[in-house]
């Protein structure tokens, strides 16, 4: 069974995004970039499927600038077998990403696509669902457990109020939530090995997919800031302030 894992290069999880003064976007110059945390979880899950003998090949793909090769090398160091970069300097919207991934699925014919539920830059939480729709494959989003047996996958999903379990026929799209697993750190030998693994680069234009943006960004602004309030000395002080000053009790 072949597993395709899309990964995205985004601002590092621990870095606070700063809005550019000209309001055209977020300043990413000289900012640490990493693999989107949800994508890491997806890679980990795919590699575990291979280690369990369920998957035979794990292919990591990314759509982005040349630097996204680093992100793919991380996936290879975690245990993916090979990687594909669809190179573009454009920042694609989820619908366009889903269309590109659909084209790659057409070429690679995976039995399962495992991907993060959301990227921490755009915070859209849409690409996996869109890909499943375009492929007419079943979807199981926000997975906290995944069990593949034969031609089916049993997926436990994090939903409002608890957990839901679905069984989907393969091929399918599964999106990873935080508690699906804890991704490994790549060991130094594996990082070295990853440098020798195959990483193919394709130009976005060569896929012939319409990736024109549907949304125009008018401006990007900073949200109104909260300022630190006061420190209270005791719990009784706190209650009295909440009652008389804030009026929320």
């Amino acid at each position, binding site marked *: 069974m072949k597993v395709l894992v899309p990964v995205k290069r985004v*601002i590092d*999880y621990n870095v*606070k*995004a700063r809005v550019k003064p000209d309001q055209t976007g*977020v300043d990413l110059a000289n900012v640490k970039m990493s693999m989107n945390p949800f994508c890491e979880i997806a890679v980990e899950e795919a590699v575990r499927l291979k280690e369990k003998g369920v998957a035979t090949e794990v292919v990591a793909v990314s759509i982005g600038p040349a630097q996204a090769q680093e992100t793919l090398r991380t996936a290879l160091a975690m245990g993916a077998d090979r990687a594909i970069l669809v190179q573009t300097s454009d920042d694609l*919207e*989820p*619908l366009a990403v*889903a269309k590109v991934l659909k084209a790659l699925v057409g070429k690679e014919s995976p039995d399962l696509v495992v991907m993060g*539920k*959301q990227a*921490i*830059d755009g*915070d*859209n*939480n*849409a690409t996996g*669902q869109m890909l499943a*729709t375009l492929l007419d*494959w079943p*979807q199981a989003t*926000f997975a906290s457990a995944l069990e593949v047996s034969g031609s089916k996958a049993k997926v436990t999903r*994090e*939903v*409002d*109020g*608890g*957990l*839901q*379990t*679905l*069984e*989907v026929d393969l091929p399918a799209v599964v999106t990873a*939530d*935080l*508690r699906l697993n804890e991704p490994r750190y790549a060991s130094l030998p594996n990082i070295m090995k990853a440098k020798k693994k195959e990483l193919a680069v394709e130009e976005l234009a060569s896929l012939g997919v319409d990736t024109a943006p*549907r*949304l*125009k*960004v*008018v*401006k*990007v*602004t900073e*949200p109104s800031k*909260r300022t*630190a*309030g*006061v*420190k*209270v000395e*005791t*719990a*009784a002080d*706190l*209650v009295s*302030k*909440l009652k008389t000053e804030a009026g*929320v*009790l």
Partner: protein
Amino acid sequence: MAVLVIADHDNASLKDNTEKTVTAALKLSGDVDVLVAGQGCKAVADAAAKITGVRKVLLAESAELGEGLAESMEALVVPLMANYDAVLTPATSQGKNFSPRIAAKLDVAQISEIVDVVDGSTFVRPIYAGNALETVQSADAKKVITVRATSFKAAADGGSAKVETIAAPAKPAKTHFVDQKLVKSARPELTGAKIVVSGGRAMGSAEEFQKVIEPLADKLGAAVGASRAAVDAGYAPNDYQVGQTGKVVAPELYIAIGISGAIQHLAGMKDSKVIVAINKDADAPIFQVADYGLVADYKAAVPELMSALAAAGK
């Protein structure tokens, strides 16, 4: 321009995310219909019909809609879109699950988690864990939108719209519902609660979380939340998580106990009206957003808070 709002409900009662999403929809158009899709949810449709400003309620029922299968929701909504220019869904885990499918089927962008409507095609949405607000203009003929309900006031009751039953789509062939384990709680729902009490990693165990956070929440009639660290450690169930990828809350009062205040947690609660932080580390980032900070070990502070509340008649 006509707008369809997809109701948030649990088949028994309508969630106030729906009324809030109606408010967002009314900013787009005066012609707002509500779709109630589920199983055995006639009472929900009747409740939706009472929302002021709603023109008509559509009711569709089947087992799969009751289970909330995304494929069924998409199959139901896409044909309806012939009659609507926009569809608005509360950005709950359920809404996030199916709404992008509708967008993909219609070949339009989804405008995710809007917090404001500028005009019929321009919307404001948070990006980068709420550290930036993006104003986007959509060129698509049909708008598919999810709504961060906490950013809108609930539309009032007082309407008397008609409820029209429509056919449910066929069962999806490749997705099968196995089961659902929902936590039953007498507490208010996290996203709609007036007061939220949240616990963090400092709790140290699920038992401690239940012993410290829950009685305080119950004393205040509050919902219970948790930081990602507390959920990851198994101290609290996953649907308690407040943050960038969990629930976004904006209560009147948010009390963070033993929570350091990572960017991702702040993203989920910084729009609360009043924030209280109790943490023994005076340098914890949570104090930078807190209106009232109490630098103290929760082990001493929470019991004191309980007695102070009792003394104040709570």
